[in-house]
């Protein structure tokens, strides 16, 4: 009894210190760009960070349907494209800043997720995965043929009117914000009845249904929620690039990255996508600087994914946790 109590006390005080640690870390990340005013020429690092934040947001979102519910989607870049085009159209034709419209772009992506989910999630397993690939093609062909948004050659928007030196900063903060938002959402879902239901679905859907979990509703909801931050990320990324083209937003590569980062970090864990995104981007950057950017990078991505799937199916976080070596700071499950 006493021991038990001691442990509980320990745990709460520990949770507190973990919270302090994470808070301090986020404050540091928020202060980091200010160094630009002092030293200048941090643009490379700002870019690397904002790119990483974006993928943390996207893979954490993907994890909600792909990890918690166990429904692998290979078409999540559709939400990315929808977000980008929604905000892009408003920017080009109505001159509204994507920083204002991005949340709505996320909502639009979510609504599309609901609609697609209603159809796609009638199937399980392989057929579902196939339908997500078909979703990419469906949207790509439509955008390729839609003259209003420039068709296959795309359209370009105005630059953000800030000097080049500081132009990355607003994107840095926006991406940091959505990364935090996505991880927090993922955390809250993981520790809710809804999250429990999703995990039950991933383990045995029939039993979950028998146990009274509204599986269809849960799956569709998870799919839609997982589209939200991906849509917002798309809106911001489109503005950052200043041009929109189906070939950029609807390559299977972006979807692959979300899957790979989550699997690498640990599917179904809260910290997994975060760790996976950082690890993957670091590895990839290393390869690009060492070997140059060639087609072999695509092959290396595939090889890495195969090795992780075969030998570390639980990913970095999952494997460390299993061996009891996961640093407590990363144990958010």
């Amino acid at each position, binding site marked *: 009894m006493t021991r038990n109590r001691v442990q509980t006390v320990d745990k709460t005080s520990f949770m507190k210190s973990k919270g302090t640690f994470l808070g301090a870390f986020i404050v540091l990340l928020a202060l980091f760009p200010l160094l630009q005013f002092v030293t200048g020429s941090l643009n490379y690092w700002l870019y690397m960070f904002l790119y990483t934040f974006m993928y943390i947001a996207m893979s954490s979102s993907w994890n909600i349907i792909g990890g918690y519910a*166990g429904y*692998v989607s*290979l078409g999540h870049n559709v939400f990315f494209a929808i977000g980008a085009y929604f905000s892009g159209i408003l920017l080009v034709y109505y001159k509204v800043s994507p920083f204002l419209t991005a949340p709505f772009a996320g909502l639009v992506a979510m609504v599309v997720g609901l609609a697609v989910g209603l*159809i*796609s999630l*009638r*199937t*399980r*397993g*392989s*057929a579902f*995965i*196939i*339908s997500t*690939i*078909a*979703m*990419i*093609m*469906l949207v790509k*062909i*439509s955008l*390729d*043929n839609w003259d209003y948004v420039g068709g296959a050659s795309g359209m370009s928007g105005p630059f953000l009117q800030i000097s080049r030196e500081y132009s990355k900063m607003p994107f840095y903060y926006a991406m940091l914000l959505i990364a935090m938002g996505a991880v927090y959402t993922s955390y809250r879902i993981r520790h809710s009845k809804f999250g429990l239901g999703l995990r039950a679905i991933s*383990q*045995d*859907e*029939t039993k979950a249904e028998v146990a009274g979990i509204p599986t269809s509703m849960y799956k569709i909801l998870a799919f839609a929620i997982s589209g939200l931050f991906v849509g917002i990320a798309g809106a911001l990324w489109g503005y950052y690039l200043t041009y929109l083209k189906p070939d950029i937003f609807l390559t*299977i590569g972006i979807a*692959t990255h979300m*899957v790979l980062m989550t*699997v690498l970090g640990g599917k179904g864990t809260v910290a997994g996508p975060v760790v996976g995104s950082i690890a993957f981007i670091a590895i990839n950057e290393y390869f690009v600087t060492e070997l140059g950017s*060639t*087609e*072999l*990078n*695509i*092959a*290396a*991505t*595939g*090889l890495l*994914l*195969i090795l992780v*799937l*075969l030998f570390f*199916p639980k990913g970095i976080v999952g494997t460390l946790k299993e061996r009891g070596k996961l640093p407590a700071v990363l144990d958010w499950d």
Partner: protein
Amino acid sequence: MTLTEALQVLLLGITLGGVYALMASGLTLVFGVMRIVNIAHASLMIVAAYISFQAFKLYDLDPILSIFITIPVMFLFGAGLYKLLFARLPSDARFGELTVLLTFSLALIVEGVLGYFFTNTYRSSNPSYATDAISFDTLYLPRGQFYATLISVGLILLLWAFLQFTRTGNAIRATMQNPTAAQVVGVNVERMSMIAFGLGTGLGGAAGAMMSFLFTFYPGKHWEWVAILLSLIVLGGMGSLLGALVGSFVLTISAAYVSYFFGPTWSPLTFFLALFVILLVRPQGMFGKKMEAA
């Protein structure tokens, strides 16, 4: 649209149907026997297309005859891949998802390696029949498409005969129906799976040879193809050979009409729209059995 035009479009659709059916048959066979959705199927087809293309360019080998090279090469390649990647996977609940991710990664590897060696230039072989046409009265038949479809349908018939009348074929069909029961009555399921995977990629090899002169291709092209082929086999019912055949003809003919009315850039949309419609009304496809968590 006059009657002649309608017939002409129908003819064009039919002459593509056989080729699509050949492409889809390998995919559906592999799914039927092993429950593996081979996302890398189209990338292996592209490998065969490059083999055929190089043989034509360097040794002037007719692309249709090159199937005698691409089929055995891709058969061995597929059987080896099976041994390397799938033979020892545990058949638990995560099997379907795991195999999709594995074949997906495999497709990335193939795409990357092909891109490294052959660059992303668009390729196509041009034997004399590729641009030629047979004409009857007011109608015409593109010669290349016509030959390709004849050979494709012939190969599918061969496959059917093999599955129907040989001992190995029967064993493969037994594995399709019920792997556990097949094992009990003495079928070497492991070996049958390897052969079936090899056959699947071998058929893809033949399809790749056809592809080399019918369509332009480059290493990244396989995503588009595999998405179309997957739609075909979902429509037909996953794992059903007859379904793949019927699905292919139905959709290529529909796509030909879509192309006629709305322009060729819209025609691939037919496949994906059909996929969503079928998921909505009959998720198991035309000839499929109701699929559980496969």
